[in-house]
């Protein structure tokens, strides 16, 4: 059983990490709590379905096109809807949740409530430590890790990464140092949405698509970023795996309460926050910056 818990916890945590890091990035740089973040994840999954199943395009090409399209949509949303109200936190919350619901309703109108399935690049399964793991789960986990490493490297080793981190640290000083803060914000939004779109691409063949598929991940992402420390990339990474494992543990240890797995994960977040209000890596992140 332990093997199964480890494998399932890792795959679930990997997808959450991709989503949470994107969410954290845009919060850290632009102080935007983007509640439409997981709606972009859903949008990417539906676009892949459209390209691959309706238009019959190559699955890999469908993924690339979807990630590009969603990134462009995300950047335009930032420019047109979010940026104008960026100074008003409450307005951002309302605007982004409205955006998410609009995307959901558009998907509902376009595809109905029917569960949709995206064909997988690979099929079959293997056994790791005695636990069955589908190849597509392994593929998703592997790609998630690679993307996370690339994001990490981009943030730490490139000029763009320095600009992003500088803006996150202090917008005014970054501006005085010649960094185009507005453009950095937009680029970060693009990166964050691209990460969400990639998460959607990874999840699309693993799960069924339905217009409400963004809600549970959004709740989980909020829990993860608060648990890890708002704006902390490292915190989001660690928090994602903690809550991924928490959900898996509930299913294995309290099967009758499997539907409560989200609630249990949120309870863990609450307990951590009560003990450590800045989240697990809030302080570390400050130092890191």
């Amino acid at each position, binding site marked *: 059983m332990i093997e199964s818990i480890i494998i399932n916890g890792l795959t679930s945590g990997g997808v959450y990490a991709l989503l949470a890091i994107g969410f954290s990035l845009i919060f850290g740089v632009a102080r935007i709590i983007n509640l439409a973040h997981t709606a972009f994840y859903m949008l990417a999954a539906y676009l892949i379905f459209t390209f691959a199943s309706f238009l019959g395009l190559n699955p890999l090409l469908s993924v690339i096109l979807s990630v590009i399209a969603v990134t462009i949509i995300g950047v335009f949303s930032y420019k047109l809807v979010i940026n104008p109200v960026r100074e008003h936190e409450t307005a951002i919350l309302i605007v982004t949740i409205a955006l998410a619901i609009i995307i959901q309703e558009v998907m509902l109108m376009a595809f109905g409530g029917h569960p949709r399935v995206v064909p997988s690049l690979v099929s079959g399964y293997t056994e790791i430590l005695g636990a069955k793991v589908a190849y597509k789960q392994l593929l998703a986990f592997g790609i998630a890790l690679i993307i996370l490493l690339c994001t990490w490297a981009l943030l730490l080793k490139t000029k763009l990464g320095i600009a992003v981190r500088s803006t996150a640290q202090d917008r005014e000083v970054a501006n005085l140092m010649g960094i185009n803060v507005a453009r950095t914000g937009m680029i970060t939004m693009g990166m964050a949405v691209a990460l969400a779109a990639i998460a959607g691409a990874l999840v699309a063949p693993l*799960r*069924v698509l339905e217009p409400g598929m963004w809600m549970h991940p959004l709740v989980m992402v909020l829990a993860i970023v608060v648990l890890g420390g708002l704006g902390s990339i490292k915190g989001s990474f660690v928090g994602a795996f903690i809550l991924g494992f928490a959900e898996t543990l509930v299913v294995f240890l309290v099967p009758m309460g499997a539907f409560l797995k989200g609630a249990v994960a949120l309870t863990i977040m609450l307990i951590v926050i009560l003990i450590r209000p800045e989240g697990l890596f809030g302080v570390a992140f400050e130092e890191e910056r």
Partner: protein
Amino acid sequence: MKRVMKGAIILLLACLVGVATSCGPAAAAKEIKIGVIGPMAYVQGEHHWYGALLAAEEINAQGGILVGDEWYQVTLVKVDSNEMVSVPDAASAMERAITVDKVDFLVGGFRTEAVFAMQDVAMDYAKIFLGCGASTPELCTRVADDYDRYKYWFRVTPMNSTYLGSVDFMLLGMVAEKIRAELGIEVPKVAILAEKAVWADPIVAGAKQLLPAIGMEVVGEWRPSPTATDVTAELSAIEAAGAHMIFTSFSGPVGVPYAAQWGELEIPAASVGINVEAQKEGFWDATGGKGNYEMTMNTYARVNITDETIPFIDRFIARVGEFPTYSAGTYEALYILKAAIERAGTLDSDAVVAELENTDRIGTAGRTVFTSDHDVTWGPGYVVGLGVQWQDGEMKCVWPPPGGEWEGVDYEGAVDYILPPWMVEAWGP
């Protein structure tokens, strides 16, 4: 001459007015408005609509419904309850259908929690509401408890969840026998996997109580959300528990990822129970063929439940291009309503209720007779239900088993149940 012309024109106009006033009411066909209420963005609501549409077209083509000595045409009103997302929306939709659209009767409803709310609204207005989706017995016990208020409610389909449970246990028993015979496992282990919803609760409670008494061991109960999109963890836990059978109760979209992941991971346990998603023609494609060997209770399959069954399926497919799911029982509901109205000779709700109570119709899913609490009667000779299994891309009827082994019920076209080969490989001697 002018006077004559003037007189002729006046006479002509008078005739025209007379003709218009005398022919007008007779020429404009009277209508009976029937609200078809359901989650229209989802397959359950779509099939509510399709079933009603097919029936309405057939009834109207035959002249309509004869009320007393007047013929009425059926006009359908599509009412989207949005009940998958919001129970309050469902109640509002019902209110709107009655007060704004002015429907005379209602058919449909799917999600139990929402149907309770819709039922109350319909009863407030004394509107007859024929349920075609929710299975919880309490919807009908309300009729027994407070007849005067709830007498306008009747359930046409499905059977209530107590009977669904009974058929479920018979399906389990049949598969358990197969496991005993083919794999030599005397006490098969059963994992209960039911979505967290009201309708599934009595089935789960019954299973935990009954299965040990009929030679099966319950190894655990898992209750994912009806809208869960990933149940790999549940399946891994079930495999780790050593289950030989997974007893499913799914009405929501979770049935698709469940079956796809069950087949993909080749979980060595036969899947038996209710999976509404597996009742749909699109299930095979939705699971990428991984749902092979998935078994579910169903209402329709290509077997002669009655002489009406296969012709109805053919007409349904010809009209809408899909295989009917159980919520297409609105087809039956309309015919039952038509017969009751014609017997009553009036549209008065109380009179129609009295005639609905006398319903005895051999329809597409069996013989419909209502119980005293307005539920559909279950049992041999009435509505029984089917067990179907996906076998290489085709939905085959496997229960009642061929040869009339159960109560002598033998439907032409039924075949034997097949254990998944990976299960035989894992547990075989």
